[in-house]
């Protein structure tokens, strides 16, 4: 960097702005949460829909899986709302 150019914010490797740091933190948390969610859905839907694994996924197994994913997302919403509107 020559003496005529002005330093851009956050360009120094030893300094983060709070905003950049928080952006990275939030992104990583969101990714971790999404991975955990997917892993849970895989487990639940495998259990519910693939009772006897065949040599390929049947049509009914595939539609069960689709419904299962939708229902699990819906269940997450129901639980989340119930947790925050419960009368004490």
């Amino acid at each position: 960097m020559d003496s005529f150019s002005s330093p851009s914010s956050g360009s120094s490797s030893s300094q983060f702005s709070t905003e950049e740091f928080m952006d990275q933190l939030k992104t990583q948390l969101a990714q971790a949460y999404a991975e955990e969610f997917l892993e849970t859905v895989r487990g639940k839907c495998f259990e519910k829909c693939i009772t006897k694994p065949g040599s390929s996924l049947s049509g009914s197994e595939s539609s069960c899986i689709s419904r299962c994913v939708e229902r699990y997302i819906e269940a997450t919403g129901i639980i989340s709302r119930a947790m925050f509107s419960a009368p004490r």
Partner: protein
Amino acid sequence: MDSSSLNSAELQRLISQEKERAMVNEMVAKLTSACWDKCITGTPGSKFSSSESTCLANCAQRYMDMSIIIMKRFQSMQ
């Protein structure tokens, strides 16, 4: 003062907020998993029956009730 630089107290506050959000997400995830097992006994349909959705809502609320009882019990033992 450079408002974009790392300010320890502000950063701590923001991290603390994110930590709380993460804990809430974790609780919802755990509870959804447990309540799904308790309430969705058959093959998933194209919508929840009213008994299934009631069960899920009840499950979450009873868990919260239980949490309070456990805390009170635990505190009374200190």
